[in-house]
């Protein structure tokens, strides 16, 4: 659903403005350069651009921030994707001996897309989203963020709104960037609970003992389930959706529940009846005894595209890229404010370009003076002032904080390195 104020026909006019005055190049470079800890890390990184009319150019690479900036301002890409760090400069991939050009490192990434939930949401389908089903993304972030931090020990997780119907996660820790393909797929599989395609009805099956990871995830899902699934999606309301839920319970319980539900219409009470049946079942038999948990997970648990996470050379849409269909900017999500994050209030390119044209208020002028005084480059300064005047500001500010936290960790790395050098 394109935002009301955005018209994709205006994109060719807006993009030059965006890349000239608003795109946060210096932070972007600061991110992908990772403190210069490893040589040529930025230079060997693949970018790919989607230009007008779906023209797709891969294997772009840049030696400096300046070069990247110039090129983006020249090409004005509709969409930017980030790929791996290669053994050689990607733009010279044709000149190196075949077989030696290899993807070496990349952030561990996750892609969660609302279209993968079509069988369990009734409000929208396909590329459409609304504030009701957005809860699914909130749950996904909660569950994965916890697991990646607590189970896998990662710290630098950048969550990004894709601009349309999903979210991405970039795990930027050094350890994550160096993971092998096998390790990436093991992590992704550890995190996947919903299995099976169009030919599978029951997609979550739990067995004893329940792994701590599943317990933790369940306790997060449970917080959202009553309001999201029972009220908003009304999964125990209409007959059709009730049948869908009942197809997930063991056969012997199904009959009982069908009868019980005839005398009880309230979704919450129906759910309570179902849960009672489940706890009774837990004491008796073994098979299918966790069915109420399985239902919650099938309806709410994050659905990852494992293939995106597996490959080191897989490309993923870059933060701060524009979504050509909706015009919205792919902005980082501050998970401290996750519950109030609203995809519909994410600024579109037309909005921020318009904000730029508004005459500035005095207050803004004062504010903009507070901006990092010691930033020397005047042009840079002007650009900072520019985005500060738009609704992009808070997202850029968050990105900056994220990078600060990372900088603290690689400073440690650099120190270690220079200590080593001293020893020689």
């Amino acid at each position, binding site marked *: 659903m394109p935002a009301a104020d955005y018209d994709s026909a205006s994109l060719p006019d807006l993009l030059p403005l965006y890349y000239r005055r608003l795109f946060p190049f210096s932070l972007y470079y600061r991110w992908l350069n990772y403190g210069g800890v490893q040589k040529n890390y930025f230079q060997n990184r693949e970018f790919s651009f989607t230009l007008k009319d779906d023209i797709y150019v891969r294997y772009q690479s840049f030696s400096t921030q300046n070069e990247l900036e110039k090129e983006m301002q020249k090409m004005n890409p509709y969409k930017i994707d980030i790929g791996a760090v290669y053994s050689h400069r990607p733009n010279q991939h044709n000149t190196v001996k075949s077989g030696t050009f290899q993807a070496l490192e990349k952030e561990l990434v996750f892609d969660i897309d609302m279209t993968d939930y079509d069988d369990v949401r009734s409000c929208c389908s396909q590329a459409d989203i609304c504030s009701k089903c957005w809860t699914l993304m909130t749950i996904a972030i909660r569950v994965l963020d916890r697991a990646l931090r*607590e189970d896998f020990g990662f710290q630098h997780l950048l969550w990004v709104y894709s601009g349309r119907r999903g979210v991405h996660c970039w795990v930027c820790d050094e*350890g994550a960037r160096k993971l092998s393909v096998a*390790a990436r797929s093991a992590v992704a599989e550890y995190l996947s609970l919903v299995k*099976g*395609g*169009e030919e599978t009805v029951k997609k979550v099956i739990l067995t004893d003992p329940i792994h701590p*990871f599943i317990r933790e995830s369940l306790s997060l899902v449970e917080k959202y389930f009553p309001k999201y699934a029972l009220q908003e999606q009304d999964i125990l309301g209409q007959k059709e959706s009730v049948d869908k839920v009942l197809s997930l319970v063991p056969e012997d319980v199904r009959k009982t529940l069908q009868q019980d539900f005839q005398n009880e219409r309230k979704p919450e009470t129906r759910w309570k009846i179902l849960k009672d049946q489940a706890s009774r079942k837990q004491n008796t038999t073994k098979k299918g005894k966790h069915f109420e948990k399985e239902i919650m997970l099938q309806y709410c648990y994050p659905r990852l*595209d494992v293939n995106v996470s597996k490959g080191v050379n897989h490309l993923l849409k870059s933060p701060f890229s524009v979504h050509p269909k909706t015009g919205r900017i792919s902005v980082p999500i501050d998970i401290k404010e996750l519950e109030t994050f609203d995809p519909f209030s994410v600024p579109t390119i037309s909005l921020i370009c318009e904000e730029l044209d508004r005459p500035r208020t005095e207050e803004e002028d004062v504010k903009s003076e507070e901006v990092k005084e010691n930033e020397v480059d005047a042009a840079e300064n002007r650009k900072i002032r520019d985005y500060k005047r738009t609704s992009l500001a808070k997202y850029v500010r968050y990105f900056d904080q994220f990078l600060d936290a990372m900088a603290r960790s690689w400073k440690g790395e650099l120190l270690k390195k220079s200590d080593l050098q001293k020893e020689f």
Partner: protein
Amino acid sequence: MQFSGRRKKLSPSCQADLYEQALQFYGQPPLENISLSEFESFAVDRMKLLKTVENLGVSFVKLSDTYKNKLEAESKNLKLSPRQDNGLSEHEKRRKDHISHFILRLAYCQTEDLRRWFIQQEIDLFRYRFGELNSKQKLEFLHKNNLQYDTISVEEKQALSKEIVNSSYAVSGVKVEDQDVYKVPFQDALDLVRTRKVYLKAGYAYIPHQDIVTIVLNDFRTRLSKALALTARSLPAVHSDERLQPLLNHLSHAYVGQDYSIQKNVGKISLEQIDSLSGKSFPLCMRQLHQSLRENHHLRHGGRMQYGLFLKGIGLSLEQALQFWRSEFIRGKVDADKFDKAYAYGIRHMFGKEGKRADYTPYSCMKVILSNPPSQGDHHGCPFRHSDPELLKQKLQFYKVSPSGISQVLELVKGMHYQLACQKYFELTHNVEDANFSLNHPNQYFIESQRALGGGKESKREADAPQRSQESSAARGSTAAQEAAAADASQNLAEMTEDLDSFFNDS
């Protein structure tokens, strides 16, 4: 066979301690020269063993009793069992194990696919063998190979005991108390991480001693894949040797299976025939893909690969394939322009006309069943493996399979014999008593179906004929044809033994 005279007794004692233990990491290549007859039989026997490992892994739950019994029987049979029995002496069996492993490294180091296959089977074999050791032998093995892992303190163990018990099957609280718990980076225990059978905290996996095999296997895998890469690099001499190269190829080929990427029937099938062929001669997996392609005018990546390569394998030319996919996709949401931009490349790629010219081989059942399972929106995979039994039942009813037939198929599915279930389906739908082949490839299913239906009409019979023998050699079970292929392989082996010992030394 004049080579047998070359046998030099090269200080056999210097490697004697290698054979002290039943199991080894194959860290050192054999240094002795071996006789031709040994060389042949060693290589062929180990191939048979690895093939058995592969087949058992598909038909049975790994490490279940049946799996273990069958593997033990075959190991004994091939005199590759590290256990006591009345055949060869312990030393001789261990020597055979050692040398045969190194011979196969040569044959299987050459391509990514071969390496993957070889590593997988060797690992499964190792896992089984390690499991057969008693705990004293296990400790000795760790000690001998210098494998030391960090253990956690008693206090930490107590604090985490509940989580550890809930994370790993078959450990109870009491048992955790009695055994060491190792703490390793999660990257060193990927098999446990992937299946969520270990407790993870802050990037570390907590592994009770009984699961230590995972870390050991991980070590083994790392060493083996490094070693294979090295062997591959030190083999340019083999590549230039006209006698060795075809032989090594043969060794590896006969057992990985028929290569269906070699197009034999190009252009013999017209696009109009596909609908009717899909009902008559496609295995269920392809029929399902065909049907959903016709219904949705689209298939996601996994489906395009599985189905596209299959179609290539039955003889569609590149032009036909492009036409086939384009005409279907443009009936959906994709217009011709978008198709040419976004999808045509991928199809040309499958035919090796674009990109790295990677050779895309049609997927075997094993690949369909084990890798890249379908997720939301996908129709690929193997229906016997990836469909709910209830849906599978409905589908079979819809295809007019008799109720008794359906229950036979479902019974096989329940026992996880997916390929056998598929074969049963073949028998039921082709009205044959005993299919007389061992199914391991969707394209094989197609060829057999055409043959059973008096194939001459729709695909040229003579084109299939030469495939027959090779196909069966790749088949499961020990059939006469397999013996023949093995004999064939060993004959070639006879011509190459000469220079091989020198290669071992480099690896």
